[in-house]
């Protein structure tokens, strides 16, 4: 039996989670709860979680506001404290990696290999990276031409509302929380309702790491009430959301009433361009990984394969062959390559896209069905699916499916590849596969996307800013740029002349 299965046997389900406000776990004011199920076994309830309402959200915002305005625990001013708390958080996440990974897999459906080897270590990476930056946000100073001194000071924006999605519950929560906290902001998080509790486990860890009360608060509940309160409330200074495009636009519109800082990551329909001079097997592996990683439930998924016509047939055959070898199984199993989709609703949507692909004339080459084999019958499992002959007027070419469905379109020339790649409302990421560096760089330059991988796919280390062009969003997460989303700039202008009559005052005062 694997370590994860052993750990699962020791868990006493369902787990129980409350809201986290002002350093305490508290029930919601209505005392309502909701349940989270295991997407790989829908009859299994993993957790009961407190369901917040608007009043709970307002209270959490007030607490975060108060903590910021009164510099609670010296959080706003003591960068050494912030560095210590964030770094220790990373360290303790690593110490508890297997337990957190197990919970992440149970709630999200993703494989334990992904949780253990990618998501949870990456979460620790994120906290540690931003810990290292906490004391290094200095601004700059310089003497002006007239000898006066300018000091450009960076200050935390204030209270941040963070709304992460369910596909990478901890990684995306951490990439919002950690930079905000590093610069001295206080935070209210509303996690996704399918996966609300691993962040609450991290909060327990952060308490041990020395987190002052009120600095980080978690409210679990509905988007239209709790989420909307976070967006509208004038006591919130910045909103960072990962979600659907119209939701992002609505958030921006609502947040405009109090001119909040906004950071939005809103999806992608990312092209993988494979030229005929690419290393064949290397590109096949990158394409297969790029679509099935995390069940395709990723804004970064390489869901459109644009492949040069000269190798098209052979390349698709090999992708199909490898797609059929992907082991679909409950994520808790060590041999699972692809786990369950998050919900029945998501499964239905993915199957609906597959149906539309067939109806609109695409050629189904692999998968295309819900899987019913023994062990999969109680979960939301869809086969790795490949459609060939996809044209730009098909829904599966244009719309983000958020599932394991690859749409293949052949192209003849470099120009056509670029035109197809950019024929999307999104511009989050892209992959380019070629042995010709000049061609790869020409293509990269022409692609309207926030990240372009050349001869690899999906790597998004914390050092690299992540975000999109066009409808894929606004602002950047990760890297140094993420800090800017949570900072205000203050100019301190210091007169060094000491003159009673300063030259510019003569515009009004004659002597």
């Amino acid at each position, binding site marked *: 039996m694997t370590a994860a299965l052993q750990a699962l046997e020791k868990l006493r389900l369902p787990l129980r989670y409350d809201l986290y406000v002002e350093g305490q776990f508290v029930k919601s004011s209505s005392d309502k709860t*909701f*349940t*989270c199920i295991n997407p790989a076994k829908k009859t299994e309830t993993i957790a009961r979680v407190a*369901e917040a309402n608007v009043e709970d959200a307002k209270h959490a915002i007030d607490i975060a506001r108060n903590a910021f305005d009164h510099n609670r625990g010296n959080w706003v001013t003591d960068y050494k404290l912030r560095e210590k708390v964030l770094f220790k958080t990373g360290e303790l996440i690593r110490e508890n990696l297997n337990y957190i990974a197990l919970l992440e897999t149970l709630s999200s459906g993703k494989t334990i290999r992904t949780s253990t080897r990618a998501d949870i270590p990456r979460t620790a990476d994120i906290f540690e990276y931003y810990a290292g930056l906490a004391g290094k946000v200095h601004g700059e100073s310089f003497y002006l031409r007239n000898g006066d001194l300018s000091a450009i000071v960076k200050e935390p924006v204030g209270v941040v509302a963070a709304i992460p*999605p*369910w*596909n990478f519950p901890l990684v995306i929560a951490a990439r919002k929380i950690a930079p905000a906290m590093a610069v001295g902001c206080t935070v209210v998080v509303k996690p*996704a*309702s399918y996966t609300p509790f691993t962040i609450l486990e991290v909060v327990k860890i952060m308490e041990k790491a020395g987190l002052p009360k009120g600095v980080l608060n978690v409210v*679990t*509940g*509905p*988007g*239209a*009430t*709790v*989420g*909307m309160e976070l967006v509208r409330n004038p006591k919130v200074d910045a909103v960072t959301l*990962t*979600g*659907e*495009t*119209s*939701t992002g*636009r*609505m*958030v921006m*519109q609502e947040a405009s009433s109090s001119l909040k800082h906004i950071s939005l*990551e*809103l*999806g*992608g*329909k990312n092209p993988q361009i494979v030229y005929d001079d690419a290393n064949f097997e290397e590109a096949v592996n990158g394409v297969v990984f790029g679509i099935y990683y995390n069940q395709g*439930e990723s*804004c970064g998924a390489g869901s459109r394969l644009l492949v040069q016509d000269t190798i098209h047939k052979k390349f698709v055959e090999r992708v199909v062959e490898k797609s059929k070898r992907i082991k679909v199984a409950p994520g808790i199993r060590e041999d699972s390559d692809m786990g369950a989709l*998050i919900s029945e*609703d998501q499964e239905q*949507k993915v199957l*609906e896209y597959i149906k*539309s692909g067939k*109806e*609109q004339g695409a050629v189904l080459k692999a998968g295309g069905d819900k899987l019913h084999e023994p062990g999969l019958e109680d979960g939301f499992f869809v086969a790795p699916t490949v459609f060939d002959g996809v044209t730009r*007027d*098909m*829904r599966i*070419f*244009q*719309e*983000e*499916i*958020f599932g394991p469905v690859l749409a293949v379109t052949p192209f003849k020339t470099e120009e056509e590849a670029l035109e197809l790649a950019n024929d*999307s*409302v*999104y511009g989050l990421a892209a992959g380019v596969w070629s042995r010709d560096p000049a061609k790869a760089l020409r293509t990269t330059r022409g692609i309207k996307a926030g990240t372009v991988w050349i001869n690899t796919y999906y790597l998004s280390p914390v050092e690299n800013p992540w975000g999109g062009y066009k*409808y*894929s969003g606004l602002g950047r997460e990760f890297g140094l740029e993420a800090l800017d989303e949570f900072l205000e700039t203050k100019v301190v202008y210091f007169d060094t002349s000491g003159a009673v009559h300063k030259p510019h005052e003569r515009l009004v005062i004659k002597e």
Partner: protein
Amino acid sequence: MLKATLELESTPTAKMLLRKLAEKNGQTLILVMGGGCCDNTAPQLYKDFRTGPSMERSGEIEGVPVYFESQLLRAYVGSTFVLDASPISGPSDSLSLETTEGYRFRFYLRKQD
């Protein structure tokens, strides 16, 4: 125009919800086909949503205007768009207004005859 070839229909539950929410929220409701990320393409009902130049009005259901992104609309040519709604068991993360009534809008497409 593409929009002339997309027909809109709705189920009795969807109609009931639109009427109820219009009563509560006034006459400024808009149904938009959102897209991307964890909600992918799904109907979203908002109050006072600013559609902008990239969206096209495709008609209305129960007096509520329906908007699509123009670029995505071309994939719906020749279809009948049917708005439906089903009950939800837990909290929805969507900002769409019907979630406050314990429902989530869905849609399906039917090929026109």
